[in-house]
C-alpha cells in the first residue's frame, strides 16, 4: 500500500523486504505448525520481533540503566554481582516443633532466609481447638494459636540475624505482634530485626479468599501496621503486595501485574490519607509475583512492574525519593503449573520458572517442590527445590551480567505491552473509585474467573499443552513419589498446649488487654500496642480475632 509505505520507517521497510524475499517463499514451501502462537496467558505472539517493534521505546526514558529511573533493568546497579537473591523457601506444616526442625534443616543446607506457612485455622483467625479447625490443624502450614506456639516455632533461630517472611493476612497484625514479642524475649532489638509480613488483605478478597473482617476495617488494620512499623521496626516490610495468588486463581500475567500494582497504589493512598509520609513507609513496601511457565512473558512482567511502579509513585504521589520509586519483589514458582502426573517433570518446570524470576531481577525466590500437587513437600523434595536455586546462582552464569536480556526486541516489546495493559486496567479501576470499590463491585474477581475458564478451555482443546497431562500422558505411570502425611495427632498436641497455656496465664491480664484492644478498634486508634499487650498476656489468636470481629463484623462475599 503506497500510502502507508510513505510513513513506514527504515526498520519497517527492512521487515517488509525480509517478508517478501525470504519469509514468503519459505512459508510457501513449509507452512508453520499452527495458525496461532500464544503465551500461557493466551496472548498472541508475533513470528518475529525486530527494531521495528522497539522503535516506540526510548532507551533513556523507558529502559535506562540499572539502579536508575524507571528501573526497568533492576534496582541495583550491580545486579546479582553485588548480592544474590535471598533463597527463601516457604515452609510450615504440622506442629511448631516440626516446622522449627524443617527451618533449621533448610538453614543448615544454605537457605538464606525463612518463610513461614501457617495452617488454615491460623490464616482464618481460629484456634486449634475451634470446631471449625477440625481436620485442618497443621495441614497446609504450621499451627499457631498463641505466643506459646510462636516461642517454639523460632526456638534457637536468632531473629536479629535471620530475616523471616510470614504469609499471614487477615490476622497479620496479631502474628506480627507475636513475632515481635518472641524477638524481644530473645533479646533482639526491634530496630535491627528485618523480615516481611504478607499482610495483603486486598488480594484476599480478590483471589485467595482467607478474609475475616469487612474490607474497610481490614484496610485500617493494615495501615495500623504501616504506622507502627515505620515508627518502631524501621527495617521491617509490613506488606508484601501479592500477585502470586491472583495468578494462581487464574489471572493472566497482565492481570496479575495490573491488579497487584493497583493494590499497591491503594495501600499507598490509604497510608497517605492516614497521615503517613510516602517516603517513610513506601520504601518498606514489598511485592510478590508468580513465576509461571511462559518464560519471556514472566521476565517482561517483572521488568514492567518496576517501570510502572516508579512512574506511578512519581506521578500519583509526587515522590522523587529513589527508595520509594524502587519496586522490590519476591518470586515463587507457579504451584498451579505443577502436575500430579509424572511428578518429577515438575523439577524441570520449577527450574525454568525460577530462571525467569532471576532474569527478571527478583530480590528473593521460593522454588516449589516437585511433590506439591500431591501434598506438602517432603524433606527430600524441599532440598531439590533449594538446590535448583543454588544451581541457577552458581552454575548457569546468568548472574554474571545485569539484566542480560535487556534490549531483546521481543522482551522489550513485551515489557511495553505489559505496561500498556496494566495502565489500561488502572484507568478502569480508577474510574470505579479505586481498588476497594472495584473489589466491592466484583470487577477483578470476575476478570480472573473468566481468564481461568478460558485457560481451562484452551487446555481441553489442546491449544495449551501440559506435558504428561494432555500430551505425552502415560497409562502406566511409574510408581508414585513418597509424600508427607499429617495426621490428626497434630491437633491433639496443639490443643493440649493451648489448654496448658490457658490454665497458666493471668486471665485478668488477658481480659484487660482484650478490652483495651476493642476500645482501640472502636476509637479508630492504632490497634498494634493493644495487640502486643494481648499476645504478651498469652491471649490466643482466636480470642483476639473474636474481639475484633465483635467490633468490625465479618466479611460476606457478594455473589457474582
Amino acid at each position, binding site marked *: 500500500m503506497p500510502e502507508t509505505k510513505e510513513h513506514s520507517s527504515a526498520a519497517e521497510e527492512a521487515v517488509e523486504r525480509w517478508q517478501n524475499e525470504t519469509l514468503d517463499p519459505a512459508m510457501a514451501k513449509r507452512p508453520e505448525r499452527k495458525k496461532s502462537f500464544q503465551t500461557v496467558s493466551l496472548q498472541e505472539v508475533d513470528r518475529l520481533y525486530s527494531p521495528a517493534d522497539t522503535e516506540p521505546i526510548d532507551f533513556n526514558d523507558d529502559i535506562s540503566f540499572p539502579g536508575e529511573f524507571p528501573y526497568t533493568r533492576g534496582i541495583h546497579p550491580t545486579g546479582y554481582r553485588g548480592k544474590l537473591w535471598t533463597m527463601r523457601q516457604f515452609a510450615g506444616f504440622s506442629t511448631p516443633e516440626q516446622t522449627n526442625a524443617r527451618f533449621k534443616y533448610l538453614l543448615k543446607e544454605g537457605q538464606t532466609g525463612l518463610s513461614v506457612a501457617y495452617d488454615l485455622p491460623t490464616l482464618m483467625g481460629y484456634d486449634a481447638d475451634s470446631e471449625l479447625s477440625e481436620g485442618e490443624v497443621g495441614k497446609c502450614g504450621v499451627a499457631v494459636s498463641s505466643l506459646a506456639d510462636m516461642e517454639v516455632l523460632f526456638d534457637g533461630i536468632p531473629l536479629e540475624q535471620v530475616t523471616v517472611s510470614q504469609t499471614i493476612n487477615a490476622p497479620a497484625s496479631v502474628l506480627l505482634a507475636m513475632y515481635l514479642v518472641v524477638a524481644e524475649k530473645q533479646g533482639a532489638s526491634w530496630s535491627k530485626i528485618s523480615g516481611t509480613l504478607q499482610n495483603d488483605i486486598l488480594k484476599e478478597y480478590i483471589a485467595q479468599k482467607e478474609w475475616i473482617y469487612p474490607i474497610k476495617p481490614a484496610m485500617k488494620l493494615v495501615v495500623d501496621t504501616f504506622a507502627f512499623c515505620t515508627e518502631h521496626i524501621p527495617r521491617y516490610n509490613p506488606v508484601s503486595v501479592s500477585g502470586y495468588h491472583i495468578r494462581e486463581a487464574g489471572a493472566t500475567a497482565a492481570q496479575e501485574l495490573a491488579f497487584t500494582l493497583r493494590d499497591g497504589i491503594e495501600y499507598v493512598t490509604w497510608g497517605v490519607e492516614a497521615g503517613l509520609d510516602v517516603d517513610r513507609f513506601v520504601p518498606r513496601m514489598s511485592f510478590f509475583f508468580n513465576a509461571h511457565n511462559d518464560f519471556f512473558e514472566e521476565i517482561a512482567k517483572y521488568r514492567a512492574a518496576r517501570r510502572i511502579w516508579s512512574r506511578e509513585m512519581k506521578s500519583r504521589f509526587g515522590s522523587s525519593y529513589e527508595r520509594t520509586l524502587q519496586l522490590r519483589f519476591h518470586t515463587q514458582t507457579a504451584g498451579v503449573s*505443577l502436575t500430579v502426573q509424572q511428578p518429577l517433570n515438575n523439577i524441570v518446570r520449577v527450574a525454568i520458572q525460577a530462571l525467569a524470576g532471576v532474569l527478571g531481577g527478583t530480590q528473593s525466590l521460593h522454588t516449589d517442590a516437585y511433590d506439591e500437587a500431591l501434598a506438602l513437600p517432603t524433606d527430600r523434595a524441599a532440598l531439590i527445590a533449594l538446590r535448583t536455586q543454588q544451581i541457577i546462582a552458581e552454575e548457569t552464569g546468568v548472574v554474571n551480567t545485569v539484566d542480560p536480556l535487556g534490549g531483546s526486541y521481543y522482551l522489550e516489546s513485551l515489557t511495553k505491552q505489559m505496561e500498556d495493559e496494566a495502565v489500561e486496567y488502572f484507568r478502569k479501576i480508577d474510574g470505579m473509585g479505586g481498588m476497594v470499590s472495584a473489589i466491592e463491585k466484583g470487577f477483578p474477581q470476575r476478570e480472573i474467573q473468566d481468564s*481461568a475458564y478460558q485457560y481451562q478451555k484452551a487446555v481441553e482443546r489442546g491449544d495449551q499443552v501440559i506435558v504428561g497431562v494432555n500430551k505425552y500422558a502415560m497409562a502406566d505411570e511409574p510408581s508414585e513419589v513418597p509424600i508427607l502425611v499429617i495426621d490428626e495427632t497434630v491437633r491433639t498436641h496443639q490443643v493440649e498446649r493451648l489448654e496448658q497455656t490457658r490454665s497458666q496465664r493471668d486471665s485478668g491480664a488477658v481480659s484487660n488487654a482484650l478490652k483495651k484492644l476493642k476500645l482501640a478498634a472502636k476509637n479508630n486508634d492504632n490497634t498494634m500496642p493493644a495487640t502486643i499487650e494481648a499476645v504478651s498476656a498469652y491471649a490466643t489468636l482466636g480470642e483476639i480475632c473474636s474481639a475484633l470481629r465483635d467490633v468490625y463484623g465479618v466479611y460476606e462475599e457478594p455473589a457474582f
Partner: protein
Amino acid sequence: MSNRKIRVLVAKPGLDGHDRGAKVIARALRDAGMEVIYTGLRQTPEMIAAAAVQEDVDAVGVSILSGAHNTLCPRIVQLLREKGMKDCLVLVGGIVPMEDLAKLKEIGVAEVFLPGSSTENIVKFLRENVKPRE
C-alpha cells in the same frame, strides 16, 4: 428417561479458600446444560447436606485442596444418606493423595477427580452415572 436437567451442588467445605477449580467446574457444568448451585466458601458438612436436600440435586461436587478430605468427606456422605439422598452422587475434586483414593471410594464417594482432570470427563461421568428419575 425424563427430560429433567441434571442438578449439581458444587460445594466448598472447610476453611480452604481456593475456589478456582470449583468455579471453573460450576461454569463448565452449566455450559454443558446442567443446573448448578454453588454453595460459596466455608460450608460445614451439615450446611452442604441441607443445601443438597433443599435443592434436590442429583450430585454433590466437593472441592477440597487443604488436605481435610478424610475428615470432611465421610461426614458429607453420611449426612446425605441420613437425609434419604441415597442416589445422590458425591464427587470429590482437588488435592488428594493416591493412598486416600480407595478410602474415599469405600465410604461412598463415587469418583475423585485429581488436578489435571478435564471438565469434559466430569460432565461425561455425571451423564453416565446420575440415576434417571421418573
